[in-house]
């Protein structure tokens, strides 16, 4: 797969029509893949395997505006939604990007392997649905589908929604109801929900990784970077500031969030941030009709639209769920 992609890219880059390729390179640790801009010479550094979980669409906002030439982007099926959404918002000029859809059969979360008790990992090889893991303590095996990234469990399908060409096969990895975790929270009492979220969000160290990685969160100037707010720094664990940051972060992308799950993937504290966004998506679907952000370019999202018969906000007080 990786060879196939590199060979095709060599062909495309040969005549100088394109400025470069946005793809994945080897990161600092063996199972870390970092986004990188390649030219024809550096192509042998390109990696594409089961660890390329990151969504590259946001890097196009800057890179595509830097050059006159077109740029090539490698996008997985789920990344295409974010790409479409950014095109809709005029953050990326669609004509300046040549999208190569790369096949994806779900990406692996190394943290999940570690959490399963396999430590001291030195190498991982794939054998169909089985992962063979070499560790300092001998060889172990684990099923591939048990250690997929959280976002792959809410897979949106194997179709590339914006690709100019597709390389490789994809597989859908969706498992069950993606709103199950949201419903579990809804079934709790208000006190329990508050405890849950205060507990999770007070772990936040305000590293801003969730904000910086989010393809929908692409404002040039962010409201949270205001030094005059007086509450910019990390607050005490009991304070509302972290919750406020995350409420606004999730709310700001309401209707535009494609549920790509990057926020939770990059969180160094392991906060399930996607559960906030997913609840908004669930609400919007329930109240204003089914909507998937980034399905195509030029969609009007539900919060920039209305009907005369919309529910009043007081509908929240009488809705089901824990009181």
């Amino acid at each position, binding site marked *: 797969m990786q060879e196939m992609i590199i060979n095709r890219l060599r062909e495309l880059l040969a005549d100088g029509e394109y400025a470069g390729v946005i793809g994945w390179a080897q990161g600092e640790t063996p199972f870390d893949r970092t986004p990188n801009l390649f030219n024809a010479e550096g192509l042998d550094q390109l990696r594409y395997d089961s660890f390329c979980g990151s969504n590259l669409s946001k890097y196009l906002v800057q890179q595509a505006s830097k050059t006159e030439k077109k740029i090539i982007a490698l996008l997985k099926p789920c990344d295409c939604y974010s790409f479409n959404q950014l095109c809709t918002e005029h953050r990326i000029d669609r004509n300046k990007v040549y999208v190569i859809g790369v096949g994806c059969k779900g990406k692996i979360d190394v943290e999940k392997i570690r959490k399963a008790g396999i430590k001291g990992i030195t190498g991982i090889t794939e054998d169909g649905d089985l992962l063979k893991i070499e560790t300092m303590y001998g060889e172990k095996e684990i099923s591939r589908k048990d250690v997929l990234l959280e976002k792959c469990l809410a897979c949106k399908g194997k179709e590339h929604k914006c690709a100019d060409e597709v390389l490789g096969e994809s597989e859908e990895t969706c498992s069950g109801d993606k709103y199950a975790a949201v419903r579990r*929270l*809804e079934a709790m009492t*208000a*006190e*329990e*929900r*508050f*405890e*849950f*979220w*205060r507990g999770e969000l007070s772990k936040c160290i305000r590293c801003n990784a969730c904000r910086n990685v989010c393809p929908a969160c692409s404002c040039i100037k962010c*409201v949270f970077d205001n030094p005059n707010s*007086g*509450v910019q720094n990390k*607050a*005490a664990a*009991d*304070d*509302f*500031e972290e*919750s*406020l940051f995350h*409420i*606004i972060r*999730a*709310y700001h992308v*309401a209707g535009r969030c494609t549920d790509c799950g990057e926020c939770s993937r990059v969180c160094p504290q392991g906060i399930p941030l996607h559960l*906030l966004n997913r*609840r*908004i998506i669930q*609400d*919007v679907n329930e*109240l*204003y009709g089914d909507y998937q952000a980034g399905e195509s370019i030029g969609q009007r999202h*539900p*919060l*920039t*639209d*209305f009907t*005369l018969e*919309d*529910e*009043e*906000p*007081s*509908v*929240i*007080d009488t*809705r089901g*769920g824990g*009181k």
Partner: protein
Amino acid sequence: MSMNQEWTPKIVAFCCNWCSYAGADLAGSGRMNYPANVKIIRIPCSCRLNPMFVLRAFQRGADGVILCGCHPGDCHYSTGNYYARRRMTVLFSLLDYMGIERGRTRVEWVSAAEGAKFAATMNDFVKTITELGENKKLGDLRCKK
């Protein structure tokens, strides 16, 4: 000194310039009573209300936040309150999901001719917030004097 004995709710009311603010004016000139805990902030249109305003008001010590705007269909800018309606529904739902008491936030449509409705709404809202008690979940110690 016990704080609780002295506690009276602080209410922030965001009122649209064209309807509700004039409605509040009418309540005043008509000598209708509504509690002094209600602090009115005038905004150009109900859809000017950034969700951040609501949260910052809570963070800085408000116990309840209410948004008043023109009745749907009567917006001075034609459609502003329709957008506000969707935004606030989604925001309130998210607050509910995070365990904030229902009832601390409200949206009410008050026209410029409805001074009596304005006074009644505020009386009722203050009563609700007094029953809910002090806002402990959303405050920030650093914002207290």
